């Protein structure tokens, strides 16, 4: 039984297709992050799960029960919003129990839930305050509390941290992570912040133009991106994508760039499909953090590139190298001194490299 299942879901606003045949499944207790650039449809998908938006095609199941036409309040979900959406005229206590009162819960049960949750979230001193008298972090906690008292099957978070300042954001991120570890409730979390997605999610679904590009664990998303969009979207700076051709030379596969004598041997690469590789146009992908200034592993591949640019950012520096007129970025400790304009010996960790078809932009 899947806690949440979405089948062939499509949604359009007028003639704009926002979601195109989305399929998604979440197991009990998982933390799914919907990640993507703005306008990719992630918030719409969340609103559909909540029942706040109608569906054009497809179905949503919660615990194998088709809820596509069920009212939001009867879906056994709770939602935390970006603007917190605390009712301005009610104090913290009234905000938190509003839903329970609507559901005609008994007074004793309401009191019990309120005490439990407010202690748990450390807002029990704030119960009589109005939302306008709370700080950003406190509002966030109350908003989470309002969701918690309902003991929902699924928590929905709509960019809950993006209104907070940088420091508080990191703090609240840890709190949400702890919360999930303790409660083990299923969560669907929407964000455009990849750090948030990586650190919180047990699964990440990366969306673009209304399509899920990849739905995987954070490790897989980072190490084995399924297409160039994911490769480019995750990581800062993002993965280097060098355009070139695969050449087969006496049983050995080489990555070459035309007009250059630079060649990279592709040996232990985990191909999805090994046929038709010769003369294939591909992107060779390697992350900046997998390029080293000295040989760390026996398998590291040595290559000489010209350093063009250095960006110092404190704990590290980002160097830009020239690879046959294409830019390749690398991340080094800021203590390393590299001369600009000169050929530098670099070491690529090829076990961490990716190859994408240049036409379809899919991983091969």
């Amino acid at each position, binding site marked *: 039984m899947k806690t949440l299942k979405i089948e062939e879901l499509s949604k359009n606003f007028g003639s704009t297709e926002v979601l195109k045949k989305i399929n998604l499944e979440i197991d009990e207790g998982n933390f799914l992050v919907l990640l993507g650039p703005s306008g990719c449809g992630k918030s719409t998908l969340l609103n559909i799960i909540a029942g706040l938006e109608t569906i054009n095609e497809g179905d949503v199941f919660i615990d194998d029960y088709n809820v596509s036409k069920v009212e*939001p309040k009867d879906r056994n979900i709770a939602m935390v919003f970006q603007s917190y959406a*605390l009712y301005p005229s009610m104090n913290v206590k009234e905000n938190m129990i509003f839903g329970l009162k609507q559901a005609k819960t008994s007074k004793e049960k309401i009191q019990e839930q309120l005490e439990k949750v407010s202690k748990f979230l450390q807002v029990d001193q704030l119960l009589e305050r109005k*939302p306008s008298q709370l700080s950003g972090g406190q509002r966030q906690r109350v908003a989470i509390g309002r969701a918690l008292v309902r003991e929902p099957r699924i928590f929905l978070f709509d960019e809950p941290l993006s209104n907070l300042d940088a420091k508080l954001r990191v703090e609240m991120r840890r709190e949400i992570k702890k919360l999930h570890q303790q409660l083990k409730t299923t969560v669907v979390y929407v964000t455009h912040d990849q750090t948030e997605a990586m650190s919180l999610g047990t699964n990440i679904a990366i969306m673009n133009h209304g399509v899920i590009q990849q739905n995987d664990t954070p490790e897989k998303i980072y190490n084995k991106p399924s297409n160039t969009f994911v490769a480019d979207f995750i990581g800062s700076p993002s993965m280097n994508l060098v355009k070139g051709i695969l050449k087969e030379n006496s049983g050995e596969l080489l990555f070459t760039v035309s007009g250059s004598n630079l060649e990279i041997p592709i040996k232990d690469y985990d191909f999805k499909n090994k046929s038709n590789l010769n003369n294939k146009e591909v992107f060779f992908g390697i992350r900046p953090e997998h390029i080293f200034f000295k040989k760390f592993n026996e398998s590291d591949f040595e290559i000489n590139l010209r350093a063009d640019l250095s960006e110092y950012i404190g704990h590290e520096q980002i160097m830009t190298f020239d690879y046959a007129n294409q830019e390749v970025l690398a991340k080094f400790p800021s203590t390393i001194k590299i001369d600009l304009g000169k050929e530098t010996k670099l070491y690529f960790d090829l076990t961490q490299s990716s190859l994408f078809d240049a036409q379809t932009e899919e991983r091969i």
Partner: protein
Amino acid sequence: MQDSLKSSSYQQLEQKSKYTNMFLRWFLYFILILFASYFIFPLYVMVVTSLKTMEEIRQGTLLSWPNGLNLESWAVAWGGRGYGAGDTFLRPYFWNSIKMVVPAVFFSTFIGAMTGYVLTKWRFKGDQWVFLFLLFGCFIPFQAILLPMARTLGVLGISNSVIGLVLVHTVYGIPFTTLFFRNYYISVPTELVKAARIDGAGFFKIFFKILLPISAPIIVVTVIWQFTQIWNDFLFGSTFSFGEAAPIQVALNNMVLSSTSVKEYNVDMASAIIAGIPTLIVYVLAGKYFIRGLTSGAVKG
């Protein structure tokens, strides 16, 4: 040597800027007093005249101070002289106006709040057209609808009655009240409505429990606007009512224009002030909210 020279020249500059500032300040006060008196002067004449006897009015000037606190003309304006036919006084019409303005303001404000709520938080296909037509209602000159409205009131059987006037003012207030509430609610985050829906609140519960409690500033603005409009209206009042059902502005007109013998300026002035007092009270009581409501739309989460 050079230092002392410098400091003395700075002192001169300081002195100079002090004089300039002082001059500008006095100039500012002068202008303010000038404009204030421009507005206060007619009021002064009205109050002073209403407190004089006819004898004093004939002998003194417009600006002269009254001999004593003579409230007789106020009593006449409010309650009449006590003889039967032809004696017009404001009391019954004042209550007519109250009976008209209270329900008309209430209903137009309430309906405006509802439509504003629907147009911003329960969007439907073509809602922008509905809003456009409502806006259009703000620009229709009232003269243009006098005849059709008279016919409508006749068909409904409520012409020449306070209820008829309540209906007219409610209907013609809705475009304005809707505009006010729509512009206010558009700045209220829609996430509030979403959160309330997940919490299980329905259409009316969201309106009464979530939105209405935070609408005080815009309610005050709307009430002041509607009260002033309806209380001061003469056109609808004189067209759709006559005789005993007339509102105060119509009665005031009849009183001032119908005197056959001598013009009683003191009674006229007292009547005009009485007719204006309720609006004044509303402004004084709610004035500070009026400014606040006009300037702030945003609701802090």
